[in-house]
């Protein structure tokens, strides 16, 4: 890792050396590393870098006579991603910004809590020591400022005092995350947290205090510690000066973390070619093991054999029910606005609840508090924009991101009358305000909305809409306690208008609304034990459907299905415990209490009879807010890690979860008119148990990251329907609903190469997912009550994403996907009925559609990287489905002119080229 060139000086340039020193050099087809040592041999310049950076560079040749070292280096590194910085006789190599992007989080591991390191002196004697400021010799101490911290108190025999503070970027006033704090030049593993706060304890005395943060200038002070105190630091950026930390052993987050989370690199997502040049962070997630979609044009994500309603998708802590546009072809989240995307699919931390399969935790970035900025992209059917502006300089900022599709113009310009009346458009807007109040607190307010409109026939209009709002207030009580107050509200709704020829014109609506209040606290008991605890309260209000006549001629009777209400309350506590250096445990307990509330009526069905309208024995009436039914239970979230070596670990976890709301769909894949139903007297909450075991290994200075994970999951009370059930506007929906069991298991392999000109990953999953609906009554059974493959059971799932950077400006990216075709119910015969032919279907999901595979290629051209340039731009040229594979999305059978015909539909059956222009200012 660390490369320190032994001092092998043949010539000693004794006195003055300077950067102006001219040298002569000659080399042919040499490795860059060799050339650098050649320079080291000739001069007393010393290079600092990581071997792996140079490993992938081409061989170089050069011949220089009396040239400044700077010019040689410019020549050597001009076509690489490396920069250099000359500091006295040290030459420090850095990687350029775009490569940096993925480093910070992984570089120090993902621990967001400040670690307290105790440096207790060996002398345990508590003596009233005079604090001495010793003039220790330090070559760099000439201009170092000395700061006195704390007040010395007589007879205070505390052996240690605490220093805490906040690190801020001088340029944009953003907190500096993950900065490493060095005491007397040594790394005690003290870092600033996600909000730039740090804290440490030291015995009284004098120290060299240094802060190293990636991309920031080195901050160095001499401190004399008398007592507890604060030291805030404002640090400049820009000059990418490399410090000792860079030579520090990198933390292997994937190996060390107890709870494995899947982290999507938002910025890297631009390098993955996608349909119609649209960046899509969540689509990148589907190239990772365990996360898939039902196909092109499939809404929702299936995580580890779970239905798409089992994912909790959070945008700044507010739930987004359907974050996709146009049947899943586009993501409804503006990629410019996203800062972090983490997916928990293995063990879900106790602070999250309410969904069985995963948590997609998406965070928007903070608006700039220093200057006006913008970013935009123009693609073939959509445009994206992000604008950021400071409100109160250095304190608060506001950002707004928007995206829209302009396909309507194309539709309107057509000659076909039917299509002229068609409409297909969507947009999404996200806005955020962030405000810092002093050093201790911060407020963030996010608003989000997305809307899709389309009318396929001239007499119908279909609209669906997501809305989310959240307010988060972070407060730091003291060095050990932090808290967050989160208030959020989310809504999903759809609306259908039908204006046809006969007397049944109608308007139909559905909506679900949830309000969430959460208090989340972190308490650091010691550097080995940390707690996270809190309370969460969610109120759901559902309008399960209403229909109204659209005009006076319509004789549609207005109908309002009884509204539903429920309160989901949970308390949780989790602890991260370092038992030994090797063994770390993250254990959480969540207790959920769910109350279905009135006003409303609930049907009681005769036991021992199939549930039909005829078997209703009693209808119970409930007052407003009266408890109709209570469900409660404990959820366990336990994960452990054992470190064999610093770069090799074993992790195991057990996860139990409840889910109280269910999406109802009588389709094989999710659709925008799926409704959400709250658990009540007749529909029980779903629950799941997941066991997983994984091996994690990093290789070659973390150039390669390998993980192998296995999981086994059991689900109870999963929801399905009787064949041909009607979901919308059904007053007794429980007579159509079936609840049964599910099981899923699989093995996931991920190999990542993170560095070099060629980087990317390979993911392979073998997994199965089965459902079972058993009942004493045949009409309430599917496939005679046996386990059958779920709609998203795709045993083999292979993804390969490879990027190659030719130069700083040109890069190529490829994406290859292979999946087993999803299960399908086929017709197994035909019969004649009233003059027409009809089909008889097989058992549920007995067959499969053909396998899916697709190759996409993209080419990115960046504008030049001159710093002073007003606009930074890049072009993305991509071809989706290069092989022109006609991947069937669905196979269906129709009766036309009295004959049964099999048809298959695909969304993209030919290669789809696109070009997108992106720029920022």
């Amino acid at each position, binding site marked *: 890792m660390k490369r320190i060139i032994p001092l092998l000086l043949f010539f000693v340039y004794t006195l003055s050396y300077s950067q102006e020193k001219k040298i002569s050099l000659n080399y042919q087809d040499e490795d860059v590393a060799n050339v650098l040592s050649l320079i080291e041999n000739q001069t007393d310049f010393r290079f600092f870098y990581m071997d792996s950076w140079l490993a992938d560079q081409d061989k170089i040749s050069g011949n220089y006579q009396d040239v400044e070292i700077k010019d040689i280096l410019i020549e050597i590194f001009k076509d690489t991603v490396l920069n250099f910085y000359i500091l006295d006789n040290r030459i420090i190599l850095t990687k350029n910004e775009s490569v940096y992007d993925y480093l910070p989080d992984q570089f120090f591991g993902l621990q967001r809590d400040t670690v307290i390191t105790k440096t207790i002196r060996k002398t345990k004697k508590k003596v009233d020591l005079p604090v001495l400021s010793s003039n220790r010799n330090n070559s760099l101490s000439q201009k170092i400022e000395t700061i006195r911290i704390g007040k010395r108190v007589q007879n205070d025999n505390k052996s240690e005092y605490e220093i805490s503070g906040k690190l801020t970027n001088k340029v944009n006033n953003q907190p500096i995350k993950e900065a490493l704090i060095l005491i007397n030049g040594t790394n005690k593993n003290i870092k600033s947290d996600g909000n730039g706060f740090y804290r440490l304890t030291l015995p009284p005395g004098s120290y060299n205090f240094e802060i190293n943060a990636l991309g920031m200038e080195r901050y160095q002070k001499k401190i004399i510690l008398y007592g507890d105190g604060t030291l805030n630091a404002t640090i400049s950026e820009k000059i990418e000066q490399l410090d000792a930390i860079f030579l520090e052993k990198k933390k292997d987050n994937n190996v060390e973390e107890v709870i494995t989370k899947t982290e999507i690199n938002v910025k890297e997502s631009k390098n993955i070619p996608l349909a119609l040049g649209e960046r899509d962070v969540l689509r990148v997630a589907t190239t990772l093991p365990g996360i898939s979609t039902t196909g092109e044009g499939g809404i929702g994500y299936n995580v580890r054999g779970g239905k798409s309603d089992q994912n909790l998708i959070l945008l700044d802590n507010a739930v987004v029910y359907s974050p996709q546009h146009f049947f899943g072809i586009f993501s409804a989240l503006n990629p410019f606005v996203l800062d972090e995307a983490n997916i928990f699919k293995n063990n879900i931390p106790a602070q999250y609840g309410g969904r069985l399969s995963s948590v997609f935790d998406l965070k928007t970035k903070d608006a700039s508090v220093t200057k006006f900025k913008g970013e935009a992209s123009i693609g073939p059917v959509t445009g994206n924009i992000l604008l950021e502006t400071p409100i109160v300089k250095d304190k608060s900022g506001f950002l707004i991101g928007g995206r829209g599709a302009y396909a309507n113009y194309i539709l309107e310009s057509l000659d076909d009358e039917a*299509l002229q009346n068609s409409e297909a458009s969507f947009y999404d807007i996200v806005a955020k305000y962030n405000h810092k109040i002093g050093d201790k607190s911060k407020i963030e307010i996010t608003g989000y909305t997305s809307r899709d409109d389309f009318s*396929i026939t001239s007499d119908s209009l279909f609209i669906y809409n997501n809305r989310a709002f959240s307010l988060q207030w972070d407060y730091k009580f003291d060095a050990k306690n932090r808290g967050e107050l989160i208030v959020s509200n989310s809504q999903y709704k759809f609306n259908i208008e039908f204006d046809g020829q006969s007397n049944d014109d109608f308007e139909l609506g559905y909506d679900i609304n949830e309000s969430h209040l959460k208090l989340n606290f972190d308490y650091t008991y010691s550097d080995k034990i940390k707690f996270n605890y809190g309370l969460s309260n969610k109120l759901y209000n559902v309008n399960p459907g209403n229909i109204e006549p659209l005009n006076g001629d319509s004789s549609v009777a207005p109908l309002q299905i009884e509204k539903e209400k429920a309160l989901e309350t949970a308390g949780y506590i989790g602890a991260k415990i370092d038992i030994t250096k090797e063994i770390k445990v993250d254990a959480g307990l969540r207790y959920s209490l769910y109350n279905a509330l009135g006003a409303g009526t609930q049907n009681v069905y005769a036991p021992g009879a199939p549930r039909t309208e005829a078997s209703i024995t009693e209808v119970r009436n409930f007052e407003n807010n009266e408890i109709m039914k209570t469900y409660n239970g404990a959820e366990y979230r336990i994960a452990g890690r054992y470190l064999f070596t610093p770069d090799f670990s074993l992790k195991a976890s057990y996860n139990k979860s409840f889910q109280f709301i269910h999406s109802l769909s009588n389709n094989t894949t999710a659709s925008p008119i799926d409704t959400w139903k709250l658990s009540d007297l007749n529909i029980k909450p779903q629950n799941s148990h997941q066991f997983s075991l994984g091996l994690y290994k990093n290789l070659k200075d973390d150039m390669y990251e390998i993980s192998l994970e296995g999981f086994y999951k059991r689900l109870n009370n999963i929801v399905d329907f009787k064949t041909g059930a009607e979901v919308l506007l059904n007053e007794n929906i429980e007579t159509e609903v079936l609840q049964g069991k599910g099981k899923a298991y699989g093995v996931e392999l991920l190999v990542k190469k993170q560095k070099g000109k060629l980087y990317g990953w390979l993911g392979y999953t073998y997994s199965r997912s089965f459902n079972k609906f058993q009942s004493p009554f045949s009409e309430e059974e599917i496939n005679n009550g046996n386990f059958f493959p779920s709609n998203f059971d795709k045993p083999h799932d292979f993804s390969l994403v490879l990027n190659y950077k030719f130069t700083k400006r040109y890069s190529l990216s490829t994406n290859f996907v292979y999946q087993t075709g999803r299960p399908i119910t086929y017709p197994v015969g035909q019969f004649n009925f009233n003059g027409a032919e009809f089909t008889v279907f097989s058992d549920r999901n007995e067959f499969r559609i053909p396998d899916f595979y697709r190759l996409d290629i993209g080419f990115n051209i960046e504008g030049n990287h001159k710093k002073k340039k007003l606009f930074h731009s890049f072009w993305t040229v991509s071809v989706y489905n290069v092989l022109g594979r006609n991947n069937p999305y669905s196979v269906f059978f129709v009766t036309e002119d009295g004959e049964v015909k099999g048809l298959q539909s695909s969304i993209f059956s030919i290669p789809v080229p696109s070009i997108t222009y992106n720029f920022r200012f």
Partner: protein
Amino acid sequence: MKKRYNIAEFFKANRLVYILFVFLGLYGCTEPFIADDLFTEDLLVVNATISDQVRKQEVILSRTIGFEADTPVFETGATILIKEDSLTEYTFEEIEPGVYKSIQDFGVNEGKEYELSITTQNGMIYKSEKVIAPGPTSIENVYAKRTINDEGVEGIGIFLNSFDPLGNSMYYRYDFEETYQIITPLWIATDLIATVQGNEVIFDTASRPEEEQVCYKTQRSNRISLVNTSGLIEDRIEDQMVNFIPADDIRVENRYSILVKQYVQTLSSHSFYNTLNEFSSSENIFSQIQPGFITGNIKSVNNPDEKVVGFFDVSSLAEERIFFNRKDFLEGLPKFEYDCEEFIPERGRLESVNEFRIRIATLIRNNRLRVLRFTPIINPDGEPNIVFVPRLCGDCTILGKPEPPDFWIE
């Protein structure tokens, strides 16, 4: 109460594909899917609709067949019995393979319970659930109106109004029998007859039968058409289109008649037909309705695991017939175009005159073409000069029957 809305309309494949073509630049596609590894299940299919109209009721028994198979397979030799309130029994006899008719005329009575039982030739016994007959129904009126359908085609729509002041009907199924008149466009009074005597062909003229000029064709609907009024304030059906005929269809070339049948069904029977319909109509591309086996109300007594296709449907029936002429509605719109291309046989270079005459005689006797014009052939050795047209242009019996049906009114 269940109400089925026309939501599937929004997601119909055809239209959506167009949108996708535009939106995504012609990337999507729907094409025939050839499934090669399908297997066939051989199941009993029961098609039994009995109504309150007193007549010989009908039950059809068949078997499911593979997709390759063209000919239906009927279940013959079965014994069928319908019980009314477990008291009265109506027996059936097989009048043609798979088609069973009640021996006596009967109609179902409102509020009474009916049960169908079938014993097949191999001894398997099947029984339906007990079904209660719904109340009687009536049609307010049926009328024809010039209209443009959803695909933008102009033609004639057959509409219906119905009203049940008691509000008990709610679940309606429609079906019809249409009859149309065909008038041959190129009918000529004199026909050419060819008689072969030994090796010689003798041509003669004769008068063409008048019946070949005007015919009547009757056919049944082959779709399931369902309406329900459970979501409406009144049990009223207004301007419901039962059938649509494009202006240039042969059916509306002259005079047309339709017998519209309105069945009032039970909820479960309505659901069965509706599911059947949903599974066979054009699908939505993005989300496919979960198909599966549609369980009816007939079960095997011997083997509860055996699947039985079909439904014992006890309905009330109301019928209404209307007549109209093309000129009443469709004046000025394009008419049906007969394909009456003239065909004039010529003697081949190596063909003798006699061989040519024999060929002509064969053409006449094959009755695929009809003579339109010919020069009188006096000379028995002369070369005939004959103009043929397709048979339909000169003889409508290829399509219909010459006698008007009993109900026909000019």
